[in-house]
């Protein structure tokens, strides 16, 4: 195999369909190899049977590498998690790269390795892909799109509209880790934080939860917009109210400190390895116990419940015994001025 020069950059020619492009793609192959991909036909061909879940997501993140992950890991985990949130067992992913000319080839290799590792961990295969190179300024270093398919086991019916009064709200762990990890690396805002991104595939955790109970009504990974957005979505679609307890929401000390400093609310900050679930009350403890046995759910907790009152609204009971409405954040989260 050809050695990669450290300084080597992606050129427009890498996307031209010619020899350079072929070389580049072939250099990815050993990392991603599987019998379906290796055929290199125009489409991936495979058998599937059962209820299919299908999802797509595009990934842009600044910086490309952050504590605890990178855009590649994110692109795999994000799509795997979207499939898992409907109760599906994720199976196959597509991978499309839009590369800005000038991206160091070494960075791209590192990201491909990370994609391979994340796919291995999640037990999914990359079965089809595409690579494009665009001129400088036409993209921000690297954009990735992944689509995924999975199979939903019989009897599973998970949807944001399924919450019923009396159900319990469960969160799988500390919130805000990913958003703070990425923010801490931003130009102009660099601060040292011991918090890595929580970016992780959650399909194993979901499988454990589904084994524990057939009464998981809603499930979602609170990515952009944070837990506040996910819970509001559950409340609105289910036409039910949600009450959560400020005391019970797990937040890492360092995340809390960063939020205090910047004037941000952990409820509004993105996660990439957490899920929020609405579970029938009678099964809540059993689901929680199953989650706690999984490494991605060890800090899981019941944080609230679904109520008949204030349909469509999420209310938080504060430590002092008052209550306030939890709304979705508006626009980009910006640190306060003074």
């Amino acid at each position, binding site marked *: 195999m050809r050695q990669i020069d450290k300084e080597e950059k992606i050129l427009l020619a890498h996307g031209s369909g010619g020899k350079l492009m072929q070389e580049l793609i072939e250099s990815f192959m050993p990392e991603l190899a599987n019998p379906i991909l290796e055929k290199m036909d125009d489409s991936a061909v495979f058998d599937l049977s059962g209820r299919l879940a299908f999802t797509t997501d595009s990934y842009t993140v600044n910086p490309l590498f952050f504590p605890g992950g990178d855009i590649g890991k994110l692109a795999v985990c994000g799509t795997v998690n979207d499939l898992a949130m409907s109760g599906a067992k994720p199976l196959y992913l597509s991978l499309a790269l839009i590369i800005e000319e000038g991206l160091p080839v070494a960075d791209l290799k590192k990201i491909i390795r990370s994609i391979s590792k994340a796919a291995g961990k999640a037990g999914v295969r990359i079965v089809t892909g595409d690579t494009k190179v665009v001129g400088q300024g036409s993209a921000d270093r690297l954009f990735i799109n992944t689509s995924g398919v999975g199979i939903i086991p019989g009897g599973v019916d998970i949807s944001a509209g399924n919450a019923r009064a009396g159900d319990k709200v469960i969160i799988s762990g500390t919130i805000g880790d990913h958003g703070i990890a990425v923010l801490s690396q931003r130009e*102009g805002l660099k601060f040292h934080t011991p918090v890595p991104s929580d970016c992780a595939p959650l399909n194993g955790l979901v499988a454990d939860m589904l084994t524990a109970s057939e009464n998981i009504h809603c499930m979602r990974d609170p990515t952009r917009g944070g837990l506040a957005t996910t819970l509001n979505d559950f409340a609105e679609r289910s036409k039910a109210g949600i009450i959560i307890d400020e005391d019970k929401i797990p937040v890492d000390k360092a995340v809390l400190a960063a939020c205090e400093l910047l004037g941000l609310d952990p409820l509004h900050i993105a996660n990439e390895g957490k899920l929020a679930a609405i579970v029938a009350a009678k099964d809540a403890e059993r689901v929680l116990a199953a989650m706690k046995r999984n490494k991605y759910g060890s800090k899981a907790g019941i944080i609230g419940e679904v109520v008949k009152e204030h349909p469509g609204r999420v209310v938080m009971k504060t*430590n002092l*015994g008052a209550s*306030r409405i939890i*709304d979705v954040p*508006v626009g980009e989260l*910006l640190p306060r001025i*003074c």
Partner: protein
Amino acid sequence: MKYVNEYRDPELGKKLLARIRRNSRKHIKLMEFCGGHTVAIFKHGLRQLLPSNIEMLSGPGCPVCVTASSDLDKAIAMGHLPGVIVTSFGDMVRVPGSASSLQKAKAEGADVRIVYSAQDALKIARENPGKSIVFIGIGFETTAPTIAASILQAEQEKIDNYYVLSLHKTCPPIMKAILDLGEVKLDGIICPGHVSAVIGSMPYRFLAEDYRIACAVSGFEPVDILMAVDSLVEQIESGQPRVDIAYRRGVKPEGNRAALELMEKVFEGGEAEWRGIGVVPGSGLKLRTEYEKYDADKKFEVKVSPAKESKGCICGAVLRGVSTPPECKLFRRVCTPERPVGPCMVSSEGSCATYYQYGEKRG
């Protein structure tokens, strides 16, 4: 988390609330000056917990909100000058001026960049020697020293393409101006926390002595605010107003000498226009003559037409404590954080945005 957890202690909070309920008899009006206080009060649900005879009003302490449309129009005009990079705190780019916003100017091709501090703007100046970098200096005595420091650093490094549009404002003069307007009758003021960390508590003495208004400097945690309210109630009930510090871990009576010296070295008092209030003498900070070469206002003479305020927007009355956001006809119907009409809906610490985010809604 030290310095936070103890000030969120529910037991301590409940004890303070019980004492406030016990001691407070008169119907009183308190103003929390800072937008940060308004957010904290809503976030922790303090209005629901205080007895109904204590009325809380939000004040003008939101730097984005009080920036005059004409000043914003000027910044936008500077953004359209060739070779100029306008740098600004994030919230500011979304505020609608008379006809545009910095965000719109950016979409039209102006080079507008969001920075987190004046140091970032200075860095852009270092990296772009062929361009002129204008930093929109907004904020109160909290941010002014850091911007003064950036000017001194530019001087030291001989950076000659860095300019500040100084729209800084100072708190004690605007408090006086609001009281002199006579529109609201206040019994007590929760004085700003971070501003007081710089200026100390002495500058508020005139409020207690001349206006007979109780004052308490407060931090931003629920226990801080309850301690301040507790002090205000005690001062009002006893008829002995003074200036109390309920934020001892952050504020000394004499303030922060180093920060004050920086500010005084670079800036001097001048008039400033406040959105919804008008021009208030002595409430602004202008660059001293020695530093006027860094003054964007002097360097770029942009002409802007007299500012136009959006029809129906009552941000001015909200900032003066005369009206509350829900009293505005546009609130929540036309004016939302996604499509703000006035500045109080833009800033995360603006009263309208806070009422929108945390207040009652959707029937």
